[in-house]
């Protein structure tokens, strides 16, 4: 187990170093923040001076080295634009994005798993076919179109849910949650729905594929031959055997969802990390962009590691394998 952890760590470090490097290469090329930081009346001398103080004139590797050393200490510098500590800024927005992603993941599992099971065990019925068709539409609709549509229907026409923002939030220590207030819960409905639509279909398709695979396996045939009732076969034997890939994919997708949330956040003005990132891109706020990229990669790496370790704990075949 220890070796496993060390290997995961080494891998994570490698991935993180590469990501930071990539981030850095890209960001230094994106644009010049100085013009954004000064106003119309600033002089050329002031511009040059600021550029020098920001270290933008240093050789590339020097800039990168400084960046990595500080990033490793959790210091991504302070935002060119907002002049706040970047990590704090991202930290403030993290709960919003995380709650959105969490709710979206929850929705996708609650809706996607049963749909996947039904389409797998009732393959020929009209409703399974209908669900299949809906799922194809689900993976095909761009989430920005979905978002715009949801706002148009549920906010403007029907007025059921708010069109933007997060509603009232409650502070729990450093974490601010919108899930404890009515307005917060109302606010999360549309963005979470729009974010989860793709995910629902992904989960559903995966569950269906895995179920079909497992249902064809010998041990299911054998279980049926033992007279185990269909319900127990489907939900106790088969579903449990295909949950592992579902859990894996769900966990892996969380990283992707966090990144993908930036589209949803843009459409719904959800005050999360993605919105911050998109705005940072517009304003060439390099520290924020770099930190965002690194944090998304970090979340991804951490989730990956957790999934791997959970695997080792859950699956009896792997548990014994190391001994």
């Amino acid at each position, binding site marked *: 187990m*220890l*070796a496993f952890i*060390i*290997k995961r760590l080494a891998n994570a470090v490698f991935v993180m170093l590469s990501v930071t490097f990539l981030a850095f290469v890209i960001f230094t090329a994106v644009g010049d923040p100085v013009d954004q930081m000064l106003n119309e009346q600033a002089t050329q001398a002031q511009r040059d001076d600021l550029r020098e103080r920001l270290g933008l004139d240093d050789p590339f590797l020097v800039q990168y080295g400084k960046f990595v050393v500080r990033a490793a200490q959790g210091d991504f510098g302070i935002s060119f634009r907002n002049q706040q500590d970047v990590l704090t800024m991202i930290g403030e927005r993290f709960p919003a994005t995380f709650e959105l992603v969490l709710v979206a993941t929850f929705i996708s599992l609650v809706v996607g798993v049963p749909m996947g099971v039904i389409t797998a065990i009732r393959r020929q019925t009209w409703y399974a076919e209908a669900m299949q068709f809906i799922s194809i539409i689900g993976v095909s609709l761009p989430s920005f179109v979905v978002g715009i549509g949801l706002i148009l229907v549920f906010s403007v026409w029907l007025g059921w849910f708010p069109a933007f923002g997060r509603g009232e939030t409650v502070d729990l220590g450093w974490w601010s949650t919108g899930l404890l207030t009515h307005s917060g819960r109302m606010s999360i409905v549309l963005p979470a729905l729009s974010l989860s639509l793709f995910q629902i279909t992904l989960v559903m398709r995966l569950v269906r594929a895995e179920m079909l695979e497992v249902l064809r396996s010998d041990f299911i045939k054998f279980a049926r031959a033992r007279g185990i009732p269909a319900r127990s076969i489907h939900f106790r034997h088969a579903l449990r055997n295909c949950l592992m890939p579902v859990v894996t994919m769900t966990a892996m997708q969380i990283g992707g969802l966090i990144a993908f949330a930036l589209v949803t956040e843009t459409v719904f003005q959800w005050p999360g990390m993605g919105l911050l990132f998109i705005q940072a891109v517009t304003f060439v706020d390099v520290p924020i962009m770099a930190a965002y990229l690194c944090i998304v990669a970090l979340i991804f790496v951490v989730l990956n590691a957790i999934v791997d370790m959970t695997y080792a704990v859950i699956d009896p075949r792997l548990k014994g394998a190391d001994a």
Partner: protein
Amino acid sequence: MNTHTPALTVEGVSKTFDVSAPWLNRVLERRPKLFVKAVADVSFTVEKGTCCSIVGESGCGKSTVARLVTGLYRTTSGNISFGTGAEGRPIRVQMIFQDPHSSVNPRWRVGDIIAEPIREMKLRDTEAETLARVRELLETVGLGADDAQKYPHEFSGGQRQRISIARALASEPELLVCDEPTSALDVSVQAQILNLMRRLQDELGLTYLFISHDLSVVRHMSDQIAVMYLGRIVEQAPVEQLFTDPQHPYSQLLLKTIPDVKNPKRRVEAQAGEPPSPLNPPSGCAFHPRCPIAMEKCKAIMPELLQADGQARVACHAVAQKE
């Protein structure tokens, strides 16, 4: 059969596979490198025009021997040498595989499959000659010349095995290594293939190294038999002697437990125990935990393969004592 010129000489050949845990795990858990001795100190000779068989249960190393002889694996130690064949060059080796489904490329036409060795080894000068040779080979193995245009999936298992044989013959080998060539076939088809192989041996003067777990097939095909257990040859004898007077307790066990079709409802006394894992072989004679006549000595000392009654060579302390 009486020429006594060896086609193949295998001397003290061993093959070890490194199945160690990755480097980091070994360092952390202070585990040594782990090797599996798939084949240990195997020596035998196959004389020209004869058929030598290797029998044993799964995991005994017989397939590894086949792959060592053909050169698909490299030996860890020991020496494999070939006699001289036609035109004074070393004997050519080809192999026939077990699974008729995976031994031919499903996406190639039969003609191309058989022509591949001719083209790769440039055995014919022109394409027309190559095609003529392919037709000839197809007819040799009992297929039609038209079949060259078809794809493997249009053929039954037995026919595919014929294709496989034709391909092996295409490179004009003198020694054919046959790795369980009929164990995936039905009995009636098995008879066809065995007869074909016998016919080819006579017509082309082929030498066979025949690998099988099926004693009745082995008895039908071979001149010499080597019985392997856990990577070692435990008994080697001419076919008649082995079947009438097996010396090694393992050979006796095999002969006793093999179902005898001609002798129905023979209530066999099943002997307990299963073959040990090659990862963790028993000390001394590997067979001693299952051996009814095991002695103290067997647990400690590995018996050597010694000359016994008749032309047999046996690796057993009990047999050696009896001498």
